[in-house]
């Protein structure tokens, strides 16, 4: 039985006091305990950013890679050993900015893993530049006269790209987030959880309060998570009311399902000391 204490690390998180990342860490640990997965069978892969440090503060296997590349690393971890439970975590800049290409392609691949995006609508670790989710007009160090682009819409992109579990949650509501993570892990296929994560140091617009006054749970309004069109419509909601919860969910074969190579056992368990290439050489005679 895994417990919170086991998951704790000696290094303590060094996020700014009050940062939304703490809520995500707690919810994630809670979800792991709730799901009762052995920590040695979990791999957490992250990119670079404040968010990217998370794997250092939870005692599972982890790989804190480079900016924007958590998804390909995590995807291959799963393909190499599909008995593992695999998470990718990262920031909005990491995942929707520099990592956008992998984001779209990972979703259409439907590998069974969970992707948690710490969406603080800002670049935290580099001290406050515009992120792809920063709202139009927002003034930051890199856009002192205000952002000109419209923000990316992760929910709409996910629905458009084949993700089979598309959800949003809020770091200020740990219970909701923990439940969403548990559901995502249980879902067979690629799960996206976009998490509203207040950055208390650099985003003075999208604060805890800002979110609290706006978010409502889709499950409370009878939203049909099997209906793609409805999900898309919901993804367009922004402003005074912003939906959280599961937007869309569908069961599809996973990528791994279609690989006979790993039907019997994961790649990592195939012996390799004496691969027989005799027949292969014969093919070339």
């Amino acid at each position, binding site marked *: 039985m895994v417990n919170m204490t086991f998951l704790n690390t000696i290094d303590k998180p060094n996020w700014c006091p009050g940062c939304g990342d703490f809520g995500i860490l707690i919810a994630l640990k809670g979800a792991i305990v709730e799901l009762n997965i052995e920590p040695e069978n979990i791999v957490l892969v992250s990119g670079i950013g404040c968010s990217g440090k998370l794997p250092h503060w939870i005692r599972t296997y982890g790989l804190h890679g480079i900016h924007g590349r958590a998804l390909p690393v995590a995807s*291959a971890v799963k*393909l*190499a050993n599909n008995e*593992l439970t695999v998470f990718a975590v990262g920031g909005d800049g990491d995942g929707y900015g520099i990592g956008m290409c992998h984001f779209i392609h990972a979703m259409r691949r439907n590998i069974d893993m969970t992707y948690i995006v710490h969406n603080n609508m800002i670049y935290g670790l580099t001290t406050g530049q515009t992120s792809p989710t920063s709202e139009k007009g927002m003034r930051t160090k890199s856009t002192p006269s205000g952002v000109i682009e419209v923000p990316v819409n992760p929910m709409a992109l996910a629905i458009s790209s084949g993700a089979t579990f598309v959800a949003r949650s809020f770091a200020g509501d740990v219970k909701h987030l923990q439940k969403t993570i548990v559901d995502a892990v249980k879902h067979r296929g690629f799960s996206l959880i976009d998490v509203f994560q207040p950055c208390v140091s650099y985003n003075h617009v999208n604060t805890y309060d800002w979110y609290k006054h706006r978010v409502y749970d889709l499950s409370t309004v009878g939203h049909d998570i099997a209906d793609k069109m409805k999900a898309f419509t919901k993804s367009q909601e922004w402003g005074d009311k912003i939906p959280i919860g599961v937007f869309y969910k569908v069961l599809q074969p996973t990528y791994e399902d279609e690989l006979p190579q790993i039907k019997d056992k994961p790649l990592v368990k195939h012996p390799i000391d004496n691969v027989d290439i005799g027949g292969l050489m014969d093919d070339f005679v």
Partner: protein
Amino acid sequence: MIKNRLTWKIGGKAGEGIMATGMIFSQSCSRGGLHVYDINEYPSLIKGGHNTLQVRVEDREIFSQVRDVNLLIALNKDTILLHKDELVDGGGIIYDSSEVIDDNEIRKNIKLYPIPFNNIIKEIGAQAIMKNNVALGASIALIDYDFGIVGEVIRDNFKRKGDKIIDENTRSARAGYDFVRKNFKNDFDFRLEKIGKSGRMLLTGNDAICMGAIRAGCKFYSAYPMTPASSILHFMAAQERRFNIVVKHTEDEISAINMAIGAGFTGVRAMCGTSGGGFCLMTEGYGLAGMLEVPIVVILSMRPGPSTGMPTWSEQGDLKFALNASQGDFPRPVLVPGDIEENFYLTQEAFNIAEKYQTPVIVLSDKNLAESHKTTEKFDERKITIDRGSFAAPGDLAASSDTTFFKRYKYTENGISPRTIPGMKKGIYTGASDEHDEEGNIREDADIRVKMMQKRGRKMIALSKELKEPELTGPNSADITIISAGSTKGPIIEAMILLEKDDIKVNFLQIVYLNPFPSEKVAKVIESTKRTVVVENNFSGQLADIIKEKTGRDVDKRILKYDGRPFYPEEILASIKEVAHG
């Protein structure tokens, strides 16, 4: 009459099956116990450009193409115009008799074999595309080779397409064969004769890389298509179910290397492959593997740069890039196979080095090596060892702390730390691309930084002690020592064979391990030779620069070629003579 020493060349428009026909010829020769080396030329477009396949056949091992051609199969007029001057005296041209050829344009001592392709095809009721086969058959008759073997090869190659296709191909070739027998004197100077079954393989450098990887137990290959590395992707994909490998055509090269890292981290042997432009995109991940100490093998198959350059041609212009890619100092082993055998063994060795030293390893190849076929003895599997390096022992794991991370980056004498992989109880750690302590925790303290840099650095020292020193080919002392790396090996050896007739004593030092570089040995060799030359397929003489950086010594001459074509032995011969006499 010259027997079993022939260069046969077929040329025509891209997309007309020239390569496939040429391959049937190559295979037919190989099956007859002869040695074959072929080389293709084609532009970066799909149909209509000019393609050639040049097949050299002898009864001894061949190491490269030569410039002289004996028999030219011209499937269009361009081929005649472009290549007639490559023909030796007494050589011949097979071409379409409907083509109007200006006799004055062809040297007197070239034999012309006009063949009414269309008539023949019509007669036997075959499709127009069978012209190639008619020409092939005609050439077999001219050189007096065994048609039975050709039929056999056709049968094997088209097995999956069914009897009708086999029959049409065979009949076409036969018709060409018969036409020549009937209409021309049996007076062509160059002949081939089978010398028994060889059991040799006919394969490309990329084929050998794939076999080496598969034999090494590679279980994961990720790549984005890029000439001349694409055929590795195709090979691996075709074999993925047979050998239980996951092969992923990724969204880009960034993903390809990061996937390889994910797989390597998880404990499977993983490889990715690309050419220069794609490698640019891999450089960041390459440094990540260095920092995380994750074993991966990267195949970098060179083509002429800068930028897109000449995508379907050959060059060795990425040596310094490969050696210095990505920011900061970290171990960057780079292996440079020189021929198809070495592609196999070094790829296999690359996996051992990667796992033993927990580091990315680059195997540097080029288009010439990647796509040329050579008859090759079956690989000797007794030479293969699988060394997976130091996984954490059960004892280490059991003894490890219950509250901290595992010391995945433990300081050790040789810099190599015990490795754990996901799933191992008590081996839990988080690897960081940031500088870190022994457990992988992010640290910025000066002393930890210094220790970690030194720990990683020591791995390179340990590796350099393990690697075999390069050996001189040819006489121990010589007038001229040739130093080179990579696919220039073939034409150098051929040039040395030509030089045997001369009184210039030449030997050859092949650099196989570009990093760690065998500085001492190279310095000693340079010192003990009268003259040293490098032979390189690039503009600036990158290997010569590296030699100077590592040994402080200038070579006497840089023999460079950078027009996208590999060296001909004849060119090296001429340059060496110049050096010797100049």
